[in-house]
């Protein structure tokens, strides 16, 4: 598929993934976690990847960072970053590519800090290792970095357990943007946080993105959050992308039945109370076809009538 670029940024995409296929192999069977997935992210664009657990979204993030380990295997496709082939990178090139070009905030980022090192030492580590600054220079930059995410630089001397969950998450985000990467991958960055903190973190990311101009690959299962933050988004199911379009378009008019079901899995905050159905039992798809452009910039996997027939949602427990 060819994805037309958004009006944002230059014509050359920062990241371009073409027909990526990733399999997990064992002696007895092999599972295709990511199946012929293609998308691209433009400069300064926030691209969202949504879907339920096990749909392959985190596998894609790990593939971009080249973090996949056995039994995972990249079975086909290409990833190109600013014209460079990520899958062909050697060890040294990969070391520079990670963190300097692409940084990632992991799902349980709050717990990804080293508990026996101060926040300051961990940030200084990034600068001395990747950028080769002196310790003094690194410390100065670390203080700047914390100010960027509105944490008092005095906290450089704090250990992770002395910070609240939200502050730790902000520190991790600060570390991710330390080397001014051109792409930031956020893998469910706010799942462990509660609502008020979550929104402040997302506002922080948006703010940083505005200042530093990086692109974002944002992975979550929270459709409401994703629509609020992303420019464009893709919905994944069973390793395939079933729909991709501008976030606003997907929100206002989801075309694929799975996207519709996913949007319907979140109770609304306004309007009348209507019974909703879960996704797991009622919605199953197989043999998802390639995407087709149904409206300008709106790509949907066509659904055959027999797929619809088996999708009668099973109601569990009526709601008043």
């Amino acid at each position, binding site marked *: 598929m060819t994805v037309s670029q958004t009006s944002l940024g230059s014509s050359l995409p920062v990241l371009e993934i073409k027909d990526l296929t990733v399999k997990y192999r064992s002696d007895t069977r092999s599972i295709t976690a990511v199946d012929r997935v293609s998308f691209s992210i433009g400069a300064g664009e926030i691209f969202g990847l949504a879907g*339920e*657990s096990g749909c392959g979204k985190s596998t894609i993030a790990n593939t971009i960072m080249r973090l996949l380990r056995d039994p995972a295997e990249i079975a086909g496709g290409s990833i190109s970053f600013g014209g460079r082939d990520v899958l062909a990178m050697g060890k040294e090139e990969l070391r520079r590519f990670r963190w300097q070009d692409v940084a990632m905030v992991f799902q349980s980022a709050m717990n990804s800090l080293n508990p026996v090192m101060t926040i300051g030492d961990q940030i200084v580590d990034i600068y001395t290792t990747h950028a080769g600054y002196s310790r003094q220079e690194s410390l100065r930059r670390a203080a700047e970095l914390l100010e960027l995410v*509105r944490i*008092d630089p005095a906290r450089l001397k704090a250990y992770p357990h002395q910070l*609240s*969950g*939200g*502050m730790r998450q902000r520190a991790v985000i600060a570390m991710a943007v330390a080397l001014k990467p051109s792409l930031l991958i956020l893998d469910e960055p706010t799942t462990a946080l*509660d*609502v*008020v*903190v*979550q*929104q*402040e973190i*997302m*506002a922080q990311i*948006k703010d940083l993105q505005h200042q530093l101009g990086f692109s974002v690959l944002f992975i979550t*299962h*929270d*459709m*409401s*959050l994703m*629509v*609020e933050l992303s420019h464009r988004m893709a919905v994944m199911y069973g390793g395939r992308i079933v729909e991709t379009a501008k976030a606003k378009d997907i*929100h206002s008019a989801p075309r694929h039945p799975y996207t519709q079901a*996913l949007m319907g*899995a*979140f*109770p*609304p*905050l*306004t309007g009348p*109370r209507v*019974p*909703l*159905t*879960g*996704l*797991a*039992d009622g919605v199953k798809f197989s043999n998802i076809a390639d995407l087709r452009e149904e409206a300008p910039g709106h790509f949907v996997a066509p659904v055959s009538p027999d797929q619809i027939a088996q999708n009668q949602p099973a*109601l*569990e*427990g*009526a*709601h*008043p």
Partner: protein
Amino acid sequence: MSKHSDTPAPEVPALEVRGLSKDFHSGGLFSRATVRALGGVDLSIGRGEIVALVGESGSGKSTLARCIARLEKPSAGQVLLDGTDVLKRDRFQASKEYRSRVQMVFQDPFGSLNPVHRIEHFLTRSLTLHRKAGTPAGLQTRLEELMTTVGLTPDMLNSYPHELSGGQRQRVAIARALAVEPDVILADEPTSMLDVSVRIGILNLLCGLRDRQGISMLYITHDLASARYLADRIAVMFAGELVEEGESLDLLASPAHPYTRLLVSAVPDPARTGSYDPSARAALRAAVMEPASCEYDGDPQQRCSASAPVRHQVGDPANRHWVRCHLYRPTAAAAGHALATEPLDEVVSA
């Protein structure tokens, strides 16, 4: 059994909490310092009613549930089941009778089921301990009945927890709670660890238990949208105290307390017009913290003084929507502790 087996008057709530407080000891062995987790909570759950308790992490929601479940010993206050103070009756720990009427479902279905036992074990144990098993044949029927009630197939009784998905495990945890035929279920964030695809299923299950079996529930969550979906009433907790309570739809449509407004404004909502506004947020935060004049204070019917009622009715009395006067607030330190998401020094001193 005791006097509690006869049906009490319908107007007596299934479970009521009066002035419940909990202070946790803090500091070293010889320290006398305490942290106030709950400061006098009054809450009632009617028969066949789901009450949602919402608030940020650290606001004391789980502590309240644990005090009601008697996993923590409250520092002061009463827990009334059918009008009887159980804290007075069973002073040191919950009686088995109390446990058979009030059950808890925990947040993490991965941690709440012992991995070395089959599903059958968890349910059988509840049934035999509380003498609900009956004959061996009756036990088997009851097991299968429980599995069907929570939407699982009876052949899963022979599975181990690791063979089940998160959603299925949470259903087992609910079945275990149901085994003793409780009147009240305390559900502490039962869906927050689950994937989106199964959350609604669990909510619908809880809803069905209320509608079909008349079970009362305290649903603890920080997800306002799910609280609105599931609960009849919502109570908002801030810094260990309830600040607002009312009928779910009415409360979220017209939140009166600034803290409730802060929570509502934080829910991602694609339909919302206008985006996140940091200054509006800061103003809301300040309103939560600052002792300002109470907007309900002008009402001569409901004067607020140091001793008089601190709850003000909002809107139609039928909605039982009340808010605490803004003058009545937790100490700045407690509030600051609960709102520890931003450097608060300037807000507190303001």
